């Protein structure tokens, strides 16, 4: 494991293989909570936090499952880990950091069904990442999500004053906007860190 590899993973997760714009993971919260930029940032930070933690925990869980020969139970085990993790974070924040808890509010429980979280865990296993790589991939993937949702929310705030056909109201125009941002993100696809 080298620093270059970690750098390549981070760069990939944030820009070239952005979770939203090129892997289509986490679209639901991306469309759902991007109407205002401050809530978007809150959601992005919460997701980053959970993705990092989930990567770390599931790495251990996966090792246990493989050792027991139960790797076909991965999906069930991972979703349980993610769900209980979110529940614990919620309880912990409520007790020790009430300000952060109220700021995140309703978004916390929503993270359980965010496919970016389960997705990053599954991708870690698929790509055979070791512990540090998994955690780095989890956190930087979350940062990529944060970048995407923040950019999108700022555009969306301006959309309110835009004039577009009535049939496009709501989700369609949001999707088209996201498509255009995705087009811009394609420009990053040439980026590479050598040697891979």
């Amino acid at each position: 494991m080298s620093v270059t590899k970690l750098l390549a993973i981070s760069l990939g997760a944030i820009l070239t293989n952005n979770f939203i714009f090129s892997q289509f993971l986490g679209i639901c919260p991306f469309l759902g909570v991007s109407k205002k930029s401050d809530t978007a940032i809150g959601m992005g930070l919460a997701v980053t936090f959970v993705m990092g933690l989930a990567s770390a925990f599931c790495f251990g869980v996966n090792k246990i499952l493989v050792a027991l020969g139960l790797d076909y139970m991965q999906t069930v085990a991972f979703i349980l880990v993610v769900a209980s993790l979110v529940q614990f974070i919620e309880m912990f924040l409520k007790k020790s950091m009430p300000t952060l808890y109220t700021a995140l509010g309703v978004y916390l429980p929503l993270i359980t069904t965010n496919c970016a979280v389960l997705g990053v865990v599954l991708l870690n296993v698929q790509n055979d990442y070791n512990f540090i790589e998994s955690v780095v991939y989890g956190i930087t993937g979350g940062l990529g999500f944060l970048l995407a949702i923040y950019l999108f929310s700022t555009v969306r705030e301006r959309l309110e004053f835009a004039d577009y056909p009535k049939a496009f109201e709501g989700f369609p125009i949001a999707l088209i906007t996201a498509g255009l941002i995705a087009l811009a993100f394609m420009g990053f696809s040439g980026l590479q860190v050598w040697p891979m």
Partner: protein
Amino acid sequence: MNFNKQLKDGLIYQNPVLVQVLGMCSTMAITTSVSNGLGMGLSVLVILTLSNIFISLLRKIIPNEVRIACYIVVIAGFVTIVDLCLQAFVPAIAESLGVFIPLIVVNCIILGRAEAFASKNSVAASAVDGICQGIGYTAVLLILSAFRELLGAGTLLGIQIMPSSYVPANMLTLPVGGFLCLGTLIAIMQWALAKSEKKNAAKKETEGK
């Protein structure tokens, strides 16, 4: 219970993707080819129907406070079964759908129907609801994937359809194409629904007179 009405709801008026806007991730990610769309659509149909039946059976036993966790465990169980079946019988499709098969667990369509329908209705009605919503989802996937594969690669189910002089619009099979096509499809749907509503309202008005 009205099968016709439920089918119409699933296909049009309450279409899971176009009207309820659920399960967007998989919809955009895997509709790059018709075979992927069909595989994904049928997998979701099976899982949705089974989990609806099961959750409806358990609806009086599951305590209200932990219901979401219980639903997720039931769904995850069925997803694992389908995942293993796909890997065993159609490895090519399992390969190309990749991580999106296990991700059906967090597909909001399934959890949404469990919460909104199966937890309140009888087993038979829930099964029918699962089938109808699944058909609606599959239909959207087929439309989107046929469009994207035909224009983006010039093929349908891997068979060359467009004349060889046609230059494929690669963009459509890239992520950008997914966003743009789905956005346009939802817009068309909203336009059509608004139009039929207007028509109905006008009809009622003339009848009223």
